[in-house]
């Protein structure tokens, strides 16, 4: 478990972090999300002390990161940077083995370990092990960056906007890779991004940061369903709008008040149910009526609601 206790960072230009309190459970994929300059990267770097907080503590499994040997601390934390930041003078194998070398592994032990990890990130060691970073594409380089971070089998991996420089296709590939690795490995991951879609896709829990202040912490669905404040609602606006629920259908004025003697086919659904889940239900039982709180919705309401969205889009276009 990683705990941030009142972590504050002040620069001469002002405060970057204002007394952040946060807990990250073991084995979870925790995403810090926020706009540029929000302090999310600064917060991430307090974990491996690339940033030393002005006040406050960061604890890993109850041990203050400031307490022990700094080099030792870092040797057991994986770190993936924005660009791959591979050393241009070293081969893929050497780059990925840097942390193992620091830990005193022999060359004979490093090679099989790195080859195994290269395979795990879908890079053929026979082809890639002896290449220089200049001979890699951006996505290949970042795969090597991930291998470098995972080499020492760390309990904790920090990722600082690792995919922000990649094209959308490569980005999706690597997001899937991270989800796969997270399922297979017992590693806690703290992942920084400014991309809310990425946050929603990857996170077990999300922390939203703005201007050095924590705005909201929770599961992605919770944040979308109930943004804590206007900033969070605004930040996730695109997703919330894409994420159509029965609550929005009712709010838009569709459906009828449920009568005193409801039909026996009426199915009660929570307001968070998406319209897609509703459509799937209608596909199976075309005549099904659903009850959301005090409102009854029929299949025709779905069609009308979708049509009203079309009008909205058309109006926007004009």
């Amino acid at each position, binding site marked *: 478990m990683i705990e941030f206790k009142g972590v504050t960072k002040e620069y001469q230009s002002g405060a970057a972090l204002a007394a952040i309190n946060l807990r990250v459970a073991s084995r979870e994929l925790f995403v810090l999300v926020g706009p540029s300059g929000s302090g999310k990267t600064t917060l991430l770097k307090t974990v491996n002390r690339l940033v030393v907080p002005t006040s406050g503590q960061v604890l890993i499994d109850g041990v203050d990161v400031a307490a022990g040997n700094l080099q030792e601390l870092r040797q057991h934390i994986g770190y993936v940077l924005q660009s791959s930041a591979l050393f241009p003078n070293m081969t893929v194998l050497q780059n990925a083995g840097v*942390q193992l070398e620091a830990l005193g592994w022999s060359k004979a032990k490093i090679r099989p370990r790195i080859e195994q990890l290269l395979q795990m990130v879908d890079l053929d060691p026979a082809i890639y092990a002896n290449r220089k970073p200049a001979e890699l594409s951006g996505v290949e380089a970042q795969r090597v960056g991930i291998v470098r971070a995972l080499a020492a089998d760390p309990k904790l991996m920090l990722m600082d906007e690792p995919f922000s420089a990649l094209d959308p296709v490569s980005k999706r590939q690597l997001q899937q890779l991270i989800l796969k690795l997270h399922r297979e490995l017992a590693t806690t991951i703290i992942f920084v991004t400014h991309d809310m879609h990425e946050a929603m896709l990857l996170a077990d829990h999300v922390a939203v940061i703005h201007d050095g202040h924590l705005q909201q912490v929770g599961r992605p669905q919770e944040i979308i369903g109930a943004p804590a404040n206007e900033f969070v609602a605004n930040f996730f606006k695109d997703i919330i709008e894409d994420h159509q629920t029965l609550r929005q259908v009712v709010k838009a004025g569709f459906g009828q008040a449920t009568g005193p003697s409801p039909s026996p086919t009426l199915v009660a659904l929570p307001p968070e149910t998406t319209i897609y889940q509703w459509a799937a239900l209608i596909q199976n039982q075309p005549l099904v009526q659903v009850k959301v709180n005090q409102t009854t919705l029929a299949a025709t309401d779905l069609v009308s609601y979708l049509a009203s969205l079309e009008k909205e889009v058309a109006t926007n276009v004009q």
Partner: protein
Amino acid sequence: MFNETIHYAQTNGHEILVALGQHIEVALIATIITILIAIPLAVVLMNHRRGGEFVLQVASVIQTIPSLAILGLLIPLVGIGTVPAIIALVLYAIMPIFQNTYAGLTNIDPLLIEAADAMGVSKRYKLLRVQIPLAMPMILSGIRIGVVMIIGTATLAALIGGGGLGTYILLGIQTNNNPALLIGAILAAALALVASWLIKLLSHTSLKRLLIGLVALVAVGGGVYGVRAATAPKTETITIAGKMGGEPEILINLYKDLIEADNKHVNVELKRNFGGTSFLFKALKAQQIDIYPEFTGTVLQSLVKTDSAISHDPQSAYQDAKNGLAQQFKMSLLRPMAYQNGYGMTVTRQTAAKYQLKTISDLAKYPQLRAGFDPDFFQQSDGYPGLQKTYGLNFKNVKTLEPALRYQALAQGDLDVSDAYTTDPQIKKYDLVVLTNNKSFFPPYQGAPLMLTSFAQDHPQIVTSLNRIAGKISTKDMQAMNYQVTVAHQKAAVVAKRYLQAHGILKQD
């Protein structure tokens, strides 16, 4: 010019190679020392911006001091020879190598440094595996600039007895010997190009190999030096130096032949074109050289302090010089040779005929003649100012110019009258007339070996050997030998040996 240069290179091939070797040796040692200072310094200071900037400033200031001045400043501190030359070169080359290394180390992408830190690598690993390899292209370009600078500046080492290719450049300028000048300049330039190219090749080599190469180079160099030192025969080496030019070179070769013929266990090392009078005199005083040929006139004019006027009688002038040196400096001036190499006034044969000039006094009647003098002669009291008083000379048009150029200017008709050294071969070459010193104004300049009295006492057999040419070698002999060396470009060693054998002083081989 081309043929002359080739001829000169052929006749002096061995000496040129030795000078080239010296040049490479001095440049290599200076380069290695500079690298060993500049790179670690940059490494230490890369995380201390202020210190780094300070060193950069200091190095830049050193760079602005003319190299000649640095050499001059170093003489009282470390003497003459290769040591001050190397120190000066190191001081010069520190700036480009330090600057580039420092810039290379401080301009590495901060993300890479962050990555290295975040991996928890040691400082040493970060330095050797990340920072230095990434700064290597910059470091090598700094070394390249430094080496080219060292090779170029090393030509000045010749001024303070450091040898090298500069010897030929200086000799060329001093004696108007263009082939020598060309050879020195071309070889120095070629050496710089080759070195620059070699370093470029090295830039494609890995750091590990570079380090191994450097260590191997130092080891081989040290080994060769050690072996040479260990296997060198246990003979005594004495050093004889000479002033700039052909005549001193002939004299020191005569000394060498005489000494080595009589003393089987003495090895004579010659330092030709070693510098000017005061420089050689200081070197002798500091025991950096053992013997050099000096002239009585020079001793009385510039070295010893005398209350009485300088005698114009050769015999008493020699006694004054000898006694002055012995009392004031504990030096011994051996007996002089027959010839005198002093100042004289010279005109072309046509001018002499036209104005009926025979003596210096005759010149006083023609103030319209255009005169050209050596700058020293123009200023010294035993030069033109003295002449004006003694002979009533008063030329309206007086120029000063390089001694080597005045004969040519006379021959071409750009000048009518100039000062001359009486043994200069150009007098013969251009068919000039030396006017009679009828009021004995010029002091006699008689050449003799000068050494410390302690050295003379410890080496009586060497004194005996050198005295074998006392009272020998006429002005005509010397002029002929000077002609063979300076104009006909024969080797001084050959000319000296030929003279000794022809006059029965040494046996034929």
